[in-house]
């Protein structure tokens, strides 16, 4: 279980998170929605300790994320970065199996390579992709390699920052299914940021909407269409008119 309590984060004068409260139960899929620049990525990174909150507490299974053994803590996580964040000095397969080539999960190179190719297949990439370098891939392919890397070591908790942006509709469908599968079959806990409403419905057990630095609405996916919340309604229907200003 991941719990954020009254989390604040500002960058200089810019107050991004202003008291975020959120709970994600073990083995469920949480989808975070919200306008561009509202701090969704910052929220994800603060759970991983990549961004240190100014105040508030973040716990995973009741333990503060800032305390204790960082390596053991991070070994439980997988993360897909919004920009992919692939290591451009390494070929694709070594990116995917990065964790399997060193550290606690280290295994023989041949085996790590096979696992990488299998994970690539799951995100819809051919085995030939394995020996290319990230700079030789299209944006959508890079995204999927990032996804393969996030799931390669089969972590218990996986964060996806916009997994389907830049993908064609069919590939987006494949990825949505994959994320759903990882949660239901492998029992992983997932937190996904997306702007794609069809992804939201395909992936989510629960949904939280970040706006003005706080969670404006959260609830199960079944309540999405009759929440009665004007902010959420405006957002999911993509209306220019409403309580959320178009220029922020």
């Amino acid at each position, binding site marked *: 279980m991941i719990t954020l309590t009254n989390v604040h984060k500002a960058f200089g004068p810019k107050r991004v998170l202003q008291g975020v409260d959120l709970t994600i139960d073990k083995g469920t899929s949480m989808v975070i929605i919200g306008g561009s620049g509202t701090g969704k990525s910052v929220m994800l*990174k603060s759970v*991983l*300790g*990549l961004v240190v909150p100014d105040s508030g507490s973040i716990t995973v299974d009741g333990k503060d994320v800032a305390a204790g053994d960082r*390596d053991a803590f*991070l*070994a439980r*996580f*997988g*993360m897909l*970065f*919004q*920009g992919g*964040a*692939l*290591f*451009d*000095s390494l070929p694709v397969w070594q990116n995917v199996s*990065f*964790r399997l080539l*060193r*550290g*606690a999960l280290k295994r023989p190179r041949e085996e790590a390579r096979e696992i990488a190719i299998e994970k690539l297949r799951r995100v819809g990439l051919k085995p030939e992709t394995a020996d290319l370098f990230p700079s030789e891939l299209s944006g959508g392919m890079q995204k999927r390699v990032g996804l393969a*890397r996030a799931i390669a070591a089969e972590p218990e908790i996986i964060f996806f920052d916009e997994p389907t942006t830049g993908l064609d509709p069919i590939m987006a469908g494949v990825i949505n299914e994959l994320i759903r599968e990882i949660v239901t079959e492998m029992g992983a806990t997932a937190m996904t940021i997306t702007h794609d409403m069809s992804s939201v419905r395909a992936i989510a057990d629960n949904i939280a909407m970040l706006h003005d630095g706080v969670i404006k609405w959260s609830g199960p996916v079944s309540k999405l269409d009759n929440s009665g919340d004007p902010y959420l309604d405006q957002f999911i229907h993509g209306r220019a008119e409403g309580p959320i200003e178009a220029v922020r």
Partner: protein
Amino acid sequence: MNAVLSPLAAIGAAVLGMLAALGRVALFAFDTVTHLFRPPFYGREFAAALVQIGWLSLPVVGLTALFTGGALALQIYSGGARFNAEEVVPSIVAIGMVRELGPVLGGLMVAARVTSSIAAEIGTMKVTEQIDALVTLSTNPMKYLTLPRVLAATLAVPVLVAVGDAIGIFGGYIIGVTRLGFNEAAYLKNTVDFLELWDVTSGLLKGAAFGFIVATMGCYYGMNSGRGAQGVGRATKTAVVAASVMILAANYLLTELFFTS
């Protein structure tokens, strides 16, 4: 009153800023060294850094030394002619090369080549979130990126300096023999007779210090790069300037330490 003091205040602020930066660099350097004694050690990255920093810098350092040795021979010859001391050319070229010009010019050339590429590479990794990705993959960027480069540079630059010394002396020899009318055997004998072991080792020690500076500055400014292409550009420029100035300052301090007692 304020108008009088404000330039002073500006100078004071700049000095304080510089001292603070120096402090942060020192902490960073110390942190890097401590990782040497805490596993894991990434051998593959170390080997790649050795090739990048050592092997691929050989042409630059070699050419620099060759031309410097030649120019030095010409200078000493024409300067020495003023008091009929042309015969000191071989020994002064050798001593000047191994004690001073080999390490300093070699260090500066490596700073231009290596510090810039390290700072740009790590800076780009920083702004494209690759450093964050490393952390989430349970890999410490100080161990994976910084230590291999710093260690490789500290070990490789002395070797580069040694090669540069030899090439520089050879450059002086060529000019001495072909242009200044020295006897070949006499030139070599003069070089060897007057060169002491400490002349050479002190230069190599300088090289190690400069190698450490070169890689540490590249890594430090890369890791602390600002956002975007502009941030990486600024980090790269600052890293090269800082490394060069620190090499010159360290050279003075080490010379003071080695040769005044």
